[in-house]
């Protein structure tokens, strides 16, 4: 996605779908466009997908999507310029020191995603390169509550069942949880789920943090 510069989003997609070098793996990549980018992403993305965003740090739809990545189960790459987003805003932050002229219009962004494509292809052909990372993720996933063995997980409210329960989305699917501790939760809100209950509101739909 590239809310302000949609041509860049299309360029990233075509790069992966139709590689310039014959014999390279074609990968499913789509440019998410339209008036409701967050809604489109929420609908379309699946656990395990990678979101590549080209945007400034203050782009609301991108910032909101990045915060939901943990609930959707997607990895994130944020390419941008200007003031940097807060630490941890995306899995990978590739930031340009140039002004908008050079970065957006003068080829710097294009260079960054060309390299991203090229290095991704190298990793496919040398699977040993990604093993270390997978082991690291497995180790992190092993951390859980000592009392109940469940984790604290980020989830997005899909719909309310009644005043006491809601269906929420996490990387492993949709489940029903108790919401009595987060009264007023609505669809689109981000909540922290633990042991079958939403413990706290992380962010309300629309960006408001309680």
């Amino acid at each position, binding site marked *: 996605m590239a809310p*302000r*510069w*949609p*041509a*860049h989003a*299309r*360029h990233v997609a*075509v*790069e992966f779908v*139709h590689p*310039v*070098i*014959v*014999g*390279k793996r074609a990968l499913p990549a789509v440019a998410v466009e339209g008036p409701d980018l967050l809604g489109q992403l929420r609908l379309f993305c699946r656990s395990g997908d990678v979101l590549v965003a080209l945007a400034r740090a203050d782009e609301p739809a991108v910032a909101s999507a990045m915060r939901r990545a943990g609930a959707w189960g997607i990895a994130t790459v944020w390419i941008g*310029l*200007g003031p940097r987003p807060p630490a941890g805003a995306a899995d990978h932050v590739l930031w340009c020191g*140039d*002004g*908008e*002229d*050079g*970065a*957006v*219009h*003068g*080829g710097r962004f*294009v*260079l960054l995603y*060309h*390299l991203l494509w*090229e*290095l991704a*292809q*190298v990793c496919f*052909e*040398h699977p*040993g*390169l990604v*093993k*270390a990372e997978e082991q690291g993720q497995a180790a992190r996933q092993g951390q859980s509550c000592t009392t109940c063995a469940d984790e604290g997980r980020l989830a997005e409210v899909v719909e309310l069942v009644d005043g006491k329960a809601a269906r929420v989305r996490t990387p492993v699917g949709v489940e029903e949880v108790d919401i009595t501790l987060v009264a007023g939760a609505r669809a689109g809100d981000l909540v922290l789920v633990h042991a079958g209950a939403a413990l706290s509101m992380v962010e309300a739909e629309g960006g408001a943090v309680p």
Partner: protein
Amino acid sequence: MSLRIPSNPEPTDFLYPFIDSGPVEADRLMADLAASATAKMAQSAKLRRDTVRLLSEHVEIVARAVAVRVRTGGHVFTMGNGGSSTDADAFADLLSAPPWGKPIPAHSLVADRAVLSALANDVGYDLVFSRQVIAYAKASDVLVGFSTSGNSPNLMRAFAEAKRRDVLTVGLAGYRGGDMAGSPDVDHCLLVSSDSVHRVQEVQAAVGLELWRRLQGELGGVAHSTSSTGAK
């Protein structure tokens, strides 16, 4: 995107020659890849600087010629295929919705998928741009085509159609310029001498930016005080 490099028996070897030289540890390989990526960034930056400098005089001439057209009500049309279609979109966006300076009426001939798919389906892909030139272009207009090979048949057909209508024609090409170089239908061919599709596209963006800056200079567009940080 229009030119495909022939299949290589070991696909990444020519991108990263060191990679199959022997069994190496992942950490070592990652370090080598990072170094290689850094080198490519430097190479791209150098090619951008060198090409913009080399083409400086020609870009100035093109900017003046485009400015003459724009001042008399001319519109700028852009075109390209694949990745170059997004360069055509981006250049039209830069002209018509600039980060600073004066907006210039511009339209990308790949922007309307109804028109594009109708023409591709009914008359063939080689004519998707030339038919739009027939429909839209007037003598005061400008047609800018992006191609890495310089050979795209649909671009060449459109340039020929534009030339017949006294439209100013500008081609951005890579490699050795292909059919665009030396074509009587292309008034100005701005060549990025590189054999890498990726480097060509990166540098074409820089050349397009330079052309737009000079065009703003011609039209009296004043750089916004925050243009260096890119506020839009």
